Structures are given as structure tokens and as C-alpha cells.
């Protein structure tokens, strides 16, 4: 997961793309090549996903059966893990925002020369693989578990670190696109306190960026396996993996459901990004149903 440039739309309003480009008539060999690429590579990407649908609906003899999908709703371990992962992602989002938004706003307004350092610090987790982090984090988690108990929710502390690069990118874009400095100065000169500036002035202006950061964090936490499994916490991915040893069909069904859920999240993220104030709202006719 070492992507610096992710699909997270940063808040910067992109310059309008040249639109004359794809409209022009082109020689057909290029167009044919383009479709061949789309079909072959797209097909390769789709094949395992379709196979999941087939595999998880296999009946006993010849017919189809939704038993594996029904099992998701009745398996207590699985439901517990899903709840746990959802709670974890909510907690991670809150903690990340509490840590990052005030800090980055402060840097933006008061200590701009620290900006590069904060950015560097936020990108650091990309250079330190999660598996390496787990190796060193044992002693720290002894303390965390001693102080806060042995709940899987304590994973939040590491997850905040893991989502840092992505959340930073989103929020940085948001802060860059709104004229926070002027607004904050105006509010301060009218007597607003710093917390008030943060809540009433900054937050509403970077709402889109905050939503982007939240969605990417949720998706990342729901998909995380490395840290949870090696610290022995039963999150969704850990349970999917364990279940796979016993009942592959159910594991495949949950995996498909989780991927679908992540897709809906990211598609919604793209929609949110295109509705950002300041950008032209997407044409309503272009909104197809999510497949």
C-alpha cells in the first residue's frame, strides 16, 4: 500500500481538462487497439471478481445456492468481526481528524515553515512497511494493553499511523484551495478564539477534504490484515482468512461483499469530489447506477 498518488481526490481544483482531445476523429487502428487493451486487461481484472460470484453461489448438485451469502448474516464470529471493524474504522477516522486537522491548520496559519517537515512525517509510513512496524510495536502495545485493556479497538493507534499519508494528502488539498488565512484573520480580528476559528471557520471550508480523508480511512481500516493478524486481534480480514480454511465459499462471499462495499465507498468519494464547491457540478445525465 505504498502509493503516494492515490485515488483520493485532493481538494485542489484541477485546471479544466482540454476537451477537444477525445472528440476528434482518429485513425481506426488506434481506436481498435484501445478497445483491445480495455477488453483484455479489463477482462483480466474482472475474471477473478466474476469467479467469486460463481464460486460463492455454488449449489450442492447443479443449481445455484445463496447459502454462503446467507451464512454471513448468521455466523456470529463474522458478524462480531464486521461490527468490530466498523467501530475501528469510525474510531480511526475520529482520531485521525482530531490529530491532523488542528495540527495542519495550525501549520497553515501560524508556522508555515514547518509544512515540509509535517508533510515528510506524514509520508513516512509509506517507507516503513506495516510488517516492520508490527515488529517494533510489541513493547508499546504491552503498555497500551496494560493501560487501556486488551480490546481490538486499541488497534486505532496504529491505524491512525497507517492512514496518515492518505488523510494528509486529502486535507492538505482542502487547506490549499480555500483562503483559510484571510478568513481566520478576519475571525480573529473580530474576537474569535482559536478553537472557534477551527470549528466555525476552517472545518466548514474544508468539508469536502475531510469527507475524502474519512472515506479513504474507512476503506483502509476495513481492508487491513497485517497488523491485526500479527497482534492477534479478530478483525474482519483476520476472520475472513480463518474462515477460509474451513468454509471457502463463505470466505469468498464475504470478500466479494467487502470489495463491493469498498467500491461503493470509493465511487461515492469520486462523486463527493466532483461536487466540491468551486467546481462545476457533474451533469446529472452522466450519473449511471453503480454496477
Amino acid at each position: 500500500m505504498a502509493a503516494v498518488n492515490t485515488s483520493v481526490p485532493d481538494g485542489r481544483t484541477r485546471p479544466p481538462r482540454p476537451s477537444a482531445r477525445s472528440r476528434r476523429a482518429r485513425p481506426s487502428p488506434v481506436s481498435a487497439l484501445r478497445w483491445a487493451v480495455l477488453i483484455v486487461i479489463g477482462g483480466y481484472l474482472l475474471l477473478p471478481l466474476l469467479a467469486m460470484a460463481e464460486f460463492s453461489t455454488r449449489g450442492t448438485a447443479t443449481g445455484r445456492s445463496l447459502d454462503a451469502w446467507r451464512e454471513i448474516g448468521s455466523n456470529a464470529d463474522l458478524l462480531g468481526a464486521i461490527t468490530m471493524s466498523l467501530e475501528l474504522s469510525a474510531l480511526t477516522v475520529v482520531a485521525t481528524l482530531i490529530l491532523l486537522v488542528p495540527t495542519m491548520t495550525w501549520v497553515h496559519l501560524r508556522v508555515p515553515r514547518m509544512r515540509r517537515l509535517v508533510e515528510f512525517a506524514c509520508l513516512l509510513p509509506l517507507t516503513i512497511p506495516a510488517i516492520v512496524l508490527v515488529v517494533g510495536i510489541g513493547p508499546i502495545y504491552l503498555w497500551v494493553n496494560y493501560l487501556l485493556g486488551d480490546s481490538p479497538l486499541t488497534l486505532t493507534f496504529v491505524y491512525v499511523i497507517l492512514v496518515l499519508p492518505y488523510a494528509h494528502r486529502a486535507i492538505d488539498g482542502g487547506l490549499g484551495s480555500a483562503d483559510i488565512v484571510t478568513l481566520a484573520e478576519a475571525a480573529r480580528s473580530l474576537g474569535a478564539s482559536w478553537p472557534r476559528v477551527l470549528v466555525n471557520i476552517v472545518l466548514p471550508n474544508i468539508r469536502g477534504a475531510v469527507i475524502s480523508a474519512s472515506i479513504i480511512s474507512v476503506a483502509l481500516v476495513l481492508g487491513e490484515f497485517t497488523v491485526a493478524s500479527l497482534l492477534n486481534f479478530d478483525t474482519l480480514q483476520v476472520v475472513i482468512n480463518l474462515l477460509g480454511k474451513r468454509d471457502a465459499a463463505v470466505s469468498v462471499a464475504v470478500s466479494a461483499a467487502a470489495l463491493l462495499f469498498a467500491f461503493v465507498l470509493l465511487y461515492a468519494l469520486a462523486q463527493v469530489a466532483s461536487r466540491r464547491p468551486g467546481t462545476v457540478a457533474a451533469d446529472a445525465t452522466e450519473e449511471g447506477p453503480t454496477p
Partner: protein
Amino acid sequence: MSTEAPPEAVTPPLGPASPGARRRRLPWLLPHLGLLPFFGYLAVFLLWPTYLVLIGAFQDDRGRPTLRNVRTVTTSDYLHGFVRSIEVSATTALAGSVLGALLAWAVAESRPDGLLRRVTVASCGVLAQFGGVMLAFAFLATFGFNGVVTLFLHDHLGVNVLSGGTWLYGLTGLVVVYTYFQIPLMLIVFLPAVDNLRPEWREASMSLGGSTWAYWRYVAGPALAPSFFGAALLLFANAFSSYATAAALVSQGSPIVPLQIGNFLTSEVALGRGGAGKALALGMIVVVAVVMSLYALVQRKAATWLR
């Protein structure tokens, strides 16, 4: 958690644009205290663990300095683990970057706000970053012992191609599944660069009598090259750091470094040999740091075109 908003005490009454006489009396450092919670958190949950890995790699079980861990890691089977890890990462980075770049080109030619583009970008985001265990199961459903493709080939062609799916659980399987998530990652990283190719460049090339081939060979190709190599490096680091997919897929042994490290953390046998695990982790940091530094260099070059 110590993640409160910057304390009121460090905020002088005047805004940043009006450094009055009163401000000058305050120590210069004071506003920087607002960053303490952030860096404090990072120190505890990122820098301290990393420090423990770095130090632990050079200590024996009683905390005395030693080079034995590093020697273990650089001489035995663990060294092969590094070689295999690098081979897997390089192969999948190469395949993923070429195929992903082709896909990015095909998608960039479509309508900017079209459904094809939006669906492709969103699904690539899912497959590239949230796959892990789930992708391993997707491939078990496809090429595993009872996978769709395995059964299809067996039933309809009557052949036991690919030895019934055993290849999936070893190194070959890793390469195939890793490539599967490298392609979407390449699309996400590389698409902005392709988007930035100016139509005027193509027009200029055409009006000077250049063919499509000449345009790609002399204009678009060189302009995209730094971004392409940067993205390929990123893909390498991505594959090299991955643990989840391999852990869910590989059934026997620990062919690659992340699995070897995982082994150290979970198995009883490895108890009391934590130093070697940390030395392995140190090796991973070194490799990824080298790759990411190269990435930063290439990225600087790419930025000249991405303006």
C-alpha cells in the same frame, strides 16, 4: 489521547499578519508548541517502534550489541528470501507498470467525466489498496483446486492444465496475484501523467508531418518516461511491503521476507531469536528506503513536465 487542539496558552493575541511589538517579546519557539501533540503521537507510535527495530537488529537477547543477527540474515536461507522478494517485486512491478500504463492510456482517451472512467478509477482504487486477503480468495475461487477456471478447463478440455491449481499456492501464484493488484495501482498513479499530455503537442507533431508513431516515440514517450519509472518504483515498493495476500495464499514455507518476519512474530520456534526478525525488518526498511529515494529523485524530474 494527547490529541487536543493547540492549547490557548501558546496563542498570542495578534494574528499572523500583524507581528506587533508585544509578539517580539514572546520566544520565537512558542507557536511551534502547537505541533507537540502531533509529533508526540508520531514519536510514540511510529518513530519509537522503528527505533526499536533498528536497535534490536544489532542486539542479542540480553540487549548486548552484536552483529550476529545481521550475519544470520545475510548468509542463510533468509538471504534467499530477500532475493526471492526482490525478484517477485521486480517482476510484478514490470508487468504491472506496462499493463497498467496501457490501461491508463486507454482510459485517458475516454470522456473525462464518463462512466467508464469513473467506474475504472473507483474499482482500481479498491483493487489496488484494499484487496489483501480478499484478492487471495478471489484467486482461490478462480484458479484454486475448485476454482472456476480450473474446473472449466478440466471439464471441457479434459486436461489437467496447470496441475490442478497447485501453482497458485507458491511463488508463481504470488507473482500472478501481485500483478493483479499492481495493474490498478499503476493506473491510479500514472493516469494523472497521461492526462497532462497536452493536445497541442500532438497537434504540433502532426502539423510538422509526424506520424502517430513519431509522436509517441519523440514527444509523448520522453515526456512520460520519468513518471513511468517513478510509478514502477512505487509498484516495486508496494509489492515488496505486502504481507496480507501472501499470508492468505502461500500454504507452505515462507518464501518471501514479509512471511519470514511474520513467522518470527507468531511461531514458538522463533522465540528468543527476535533479533534476527528485527534484522530482517531492518533489511526491508533499507530496500524500501533506497527505492523510495530513487522515486523522489525521478519524481522531481517528472515534475518538470507535470506542470
